[in-house]
């Protein structure tokens, strides 16, 4: 527990954590459980291309998500690129994307030969806003990319209705919302297709990987053909990655319960810190929340800014990060020449939130220590704020 300002790493003190505490899930099963699957992957003498473990994984994922088809690929970004390109059907057009979201999205639309059309999100759910979507869709729109967030899926019915009424395919990036339900069904069966990730920093660890879920047989077959034929981009998932993904899926409930313990710990801490408001989970089914992230809104009376809080904690080795900031339409990720709309809600949200370190590399004890530092900031707010001003942070 720091006792004076000089104790803080940002003012020259020793860092709280020698090994930085990250944000990613980094789920680590018992290696003894993984090795038999690894041996199987190696023994099959075929490490890539529609292998046995990939197919088993696809089957289990289809079950998990309550869909007919699951197509596993090299990573979620490749899945999104493929889908947007399929829906574009040879046209160069636009994909509507949320501006308060993942930095990769504008790049992926361009790989698919499309331009991003940045769209406002709902102030409460942070998911694409229905009325804004209706305005954003035009004759050039080839698809709509909805992103469901860790804290909730938003108004998927409203979004799907708009897209359907305008004859535009809708796909959903549900990477951070995996496991959640909507209308009593797991995410995975909504829109034309949904995309999930098996990246180590996401809930299910498959080293690197991704998958598409859909009930559209023709679409699933098309994706498999593109993946397996070698005629198009090689986006196959290899057996070694699939093996870890499979094991992670078996441990889904354990991962979520450990996430929940960390989240509750942050909740208790933030309750003592006026101005640090932990974003609540607002999805319809609490039993299905994945507790993947702990994100706090930073506002008065918290004595320092969101960015100062992030810098201060990162200096301690607690790798906080601004949440979806800067907004995509104002970021380096917006392609030159594309329309930069005024999106007041997105712009406001981008300035407000920060992610706390979570995942398997962060213990409950670590979170307590993070709480100690934040309490010190609460209690010495003016002095810290003044000193940060002087040092130009």
């Amino acid at each position, binding site marked *: 527990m720091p006792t004076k300002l000089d104790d803080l790493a940002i003012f020259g003190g020793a860092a709280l954590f020698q090994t930085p505490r990250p944000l990613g899930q980094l789920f680590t099963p018992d290696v003894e459980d993984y090795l038999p699957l*690894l041996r199987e992957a190696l023994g099959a003498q075929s490490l890539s291309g529609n292998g046995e473990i990939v197919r088993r994984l696809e089957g289990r994922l289809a079950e998990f998500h309550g869909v007919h088809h699951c197509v596993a690929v*090299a990573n979620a970004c490749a899945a999104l690129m493929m889908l947007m390109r399929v829906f574009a059907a040879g046209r160069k057009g636009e994909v509507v994307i949320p501006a308060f979201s993942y930095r990769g999205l504008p790049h992926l639309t361009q790989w698919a030969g499309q331009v991003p059309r940045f769209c406002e999100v709902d102030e409460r759910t942070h998911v694409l806003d229905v009325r804004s979507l209706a305005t954003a869709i035009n004759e050039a729109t080839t698809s709509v990319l909805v992103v469901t967030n860790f804290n909730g899926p938003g108004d998927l019915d409203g979004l799907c209705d708009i897209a359907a009424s305008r004859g535009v395919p809708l796909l959903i990036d549900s990477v951070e919302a995996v496991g959640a339900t909507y209308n009593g069904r797991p995410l995975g069966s909504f829109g034309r297709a949904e995309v999930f990730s098996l990246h180590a920093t996401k809930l299910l660890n498959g080293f690197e990987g991704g998958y598409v879920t859909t009930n559209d047989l023709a679409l699933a077959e098309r994706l498999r053909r593109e993946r397996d034929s070698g005629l198009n981009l090689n986006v196959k998932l290899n057996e070694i990655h699939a093996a870890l993904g499979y094991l992670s899926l078996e441990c889904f409930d354990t991962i979520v319960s450990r996430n929940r313990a960390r989240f509750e710990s942050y909740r208790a801490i933030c309750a003592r810190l006026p101005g640090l408001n932990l974003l609540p989970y607002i999805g319809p089914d609490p039993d299905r929340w994945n507790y993947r992230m702990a994100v706090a809104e930073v506002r008065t009376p918290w004595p320092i800014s969101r960015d100062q809080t992030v810098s201060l904690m990162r200096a301690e080795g607690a790798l906080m990060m601004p949440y979806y900031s800067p907004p995509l339409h104002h970021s380096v990720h917006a392609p030159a020449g594309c329309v930069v709309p005024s999106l007041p809600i997105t712009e406001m949200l981008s300035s407000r939130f920060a992610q706390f370190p979570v995942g398997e590399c962060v213990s409950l004890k670590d979170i307590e220590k993070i709480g100690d530092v934040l309490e010190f900031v609460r209690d010495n707010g003016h002095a810290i704020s003044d000193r940060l001003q002087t040092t130009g942070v």
Partner: protein
Amino acid sequence: MADLAAIFARFGAEPRFAAPIQTGQRNLPPLDAVELAFRGIFDRRYYANNGPLVQDSDRDIARFLGVNHAVCTTNEGAAMMTLLKGLELSGDVIVPALVPASTVAALRWAGLTPVICDVNEQSLDVTCDAVGSLLTEQTTAICGFHPWGQAHGIKALQTLADRHGLALLYDASQAFGCTHRGRMIGTFGIAEIFSFSASTVLNAAEGGCISTDDEQLAAKCRTIRSFSDSPVRVALRMNGKMSEAQAALALLNLEALPDTIGANRARYAAYDKGLADMPGVRLVAYNLEEQSHFSYVVIEIDDVHAELGRDAFFELLSAENVVCSRPFEYAAFQTVGNDCGAQDARLFPVAHRCAKRLLELPNGQIVSIADVERICELIRQIRHHSQEIGAALKEQS
């Protein structure tokens, strides 16, 4: 009149091999070494995002190739797409008619227009003259290819590229460990890309890399392959990262490379011996003055002199559980064009003709010398009975 049914599985006999024997190297390091590496990954809890093993791979592969920079990726498609964006290319790129289909796909994904160049009959590679005849104002680059690791005419092509201000890059996906005029492939052009798929000599469970001496290009490629914060400005980024798991395999297989090549060479020599003096069936030779991986064993079947075509050999061998490949089955000229159709093969007569003659034979880690000898004997028998087989197949169709 031979009783084909007694000899060949295609006509009713028992298959010569009990289980399928396939093409593709599928090289694996010793199991205990792999397990040790994975225990390390789990201990560190560092699975992806430019971890220590990926960094080691970048460094060790660069050192092996003798280049300043190797940038490892999740597969060769990602390597090519990353490189194309790193070079900030637009417009037309000349590409040989015989290249992997994924090379052409990568060009299109990068927003470029592939312009296909027919190949030379002997080398199955493009000539400088042929490339030169296709240049227009829209041409910005030449993407060469080294079929089976054999390179040709690089100096002349580089001169042509330089004269016209074009970038020269190479798809070296079949060429890891090979030299050209004593220099390691990977050092030519502005950059080359490699494949580390399970079928190639260096298996990294998919995997690929970009190899270049150009510092700025390497820095751009490192930034393009991920979405992590970077001070380097690039136009477009993707997730093209290699994982720690892939890097673990790459490093172990790099260490084992001399042994792998030794085993390949022994099998190749056995094929050379077993397929000698067979009219119409010719083993594609490696230039023994260069270093090579000897990982591809390809025969060229001249249906006139062999009195039987490549497809018939393929069919007969398949039935015996010898699962061959037809190289360039989906060649450039078959994949370019709109999504519904291919370009007219008559525009590329040499590539079209050559592709139909090629048959790749099994040469993987698990293929023994005894297996090779049995495969050669089988091919010899097919050749011996070629007329009758041809007649029988015709009758049945």
